[in-house]
């Protein structure tokens, strides 16, 4: 059997287009479309403008943070309080960016070139990048990820506008189904990506520890779950390596 061939190096433009195409064929384009219909409707109901809602999707690009921002500002909560809640929901982006960037950069990549892929990093883009980028030549991965991010974001921005227009005409069962898209798609796609034991363990332990911490009313339960369950999974991985 011949050794697996190296992926061909494309031009930057072609790699970007390959990323865009990957976005269209990603299940997340559709999942994000559904999710952001809900967010567009929410923005409408809280009295924000259509352009504002679309800009918020481009700038914030994180569903949970947008829900907090829109409902918080819309309800007239103190700005500082909303900013803190948004920031707490965004901490998860830090480990995601740290795990993704070493996969897509080359020794020649400048730091400023990573700011855009870091901005596109959200759960959907992260999951798809970890899966697809290894199949792309390393030199092309930043452009590929930018294409993927633009494609996914285009779907979300369009859906924000559609949801804004549909608001109030959406039946309850449909909005419940749209809100359910996020957990079910995240779970299934994370399960697909978890090929190494350490990733599978981290997923399983996180699913068990998360609710325990939440019910125990541990402060910052999501973050603590990440650190505790992630480190435990990593420890098990190291132990297994050592015993081999």
């Amino acid at each position, binding site marked *: 059997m011949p050794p697996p061939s190296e992926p061909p190096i494309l031009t930057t433009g072609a790699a970007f287009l390959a990323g865009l195409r990957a976005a269209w064929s990603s299940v997340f384009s559709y999942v994000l479309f559904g999710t952001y219909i809900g967010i567009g409707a929410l923005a409408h109901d809280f009295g924000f403008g259509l352009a504002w809602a679309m800009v918020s999707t481009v700038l*914030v690009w994180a569903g949970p*943070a947008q829900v907090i921002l829109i409902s*918080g500002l819309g309800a007239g909560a103190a700005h500082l309080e909303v900013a803190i809640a948004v920031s707490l929901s965004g901490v998860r982006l830090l480990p995601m960016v740290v795990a993704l960037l070493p996969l897509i950069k080359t020794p020649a990549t400048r730091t400023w070139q*990573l700011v855009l892929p870091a901005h596109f990093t959200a759960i959907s883009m992260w999951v798809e990048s970890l899966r697809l980028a290894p199949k792309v030549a390393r030199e092309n991965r930043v452009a590929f990820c930018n294409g993927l991010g633009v494609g996914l974001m285009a779907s979300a921005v369009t859906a924000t506008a559609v949801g804004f227009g549909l608001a109030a005409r959406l039946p309850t069962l449909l*909005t419940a189904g749209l809100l359910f898209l996020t957990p079910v798609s995240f779970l299934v796609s994370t399960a697909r990506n978890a090929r190494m034991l350490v*990733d599978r363990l981290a997923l399983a332990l996180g699913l068990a520890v998360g609710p325990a911490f*939440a019910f125990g009313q541990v402060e910052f339960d999501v973050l603590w779950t990440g650190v505790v369950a992630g480190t435990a999974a990593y420890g098990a991985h190291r132990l297994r390596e050592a015993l081999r």
Partner: protein
Amino acid sequence: MTELAAYLALVLVGFLPNEVWRWLGVAFARGLEEDSEIVVWVRAVATATLAAVIAKLTIFAPGSLAEVPLAVRLGAVATGLLAFMLIRRSVLAGVIAGELALIAGALLFGA
């Protein structure tokens, strides 16, 4: 809120508090190798954080999803995962099966 104030709030209250973590991620990722032990650990932390978000969104559901009974939500998530494992590890199959289970459960047991 005036138009300008709304956009100012978007940047100061929404964009910056969220984006700062991405910028910190860029700073921390400098000099890290893809297969280094610290990246494996950070990925495990990110995966476990994601799992906690999934669990939280299912158990403490937002908006109209909260009107669907908890047992239906948990059953629907399990159905989605099972369908994914049984049907060629297809994410789409898992998502569709989970959604169908949720809607069927909501219709049967009240939404």
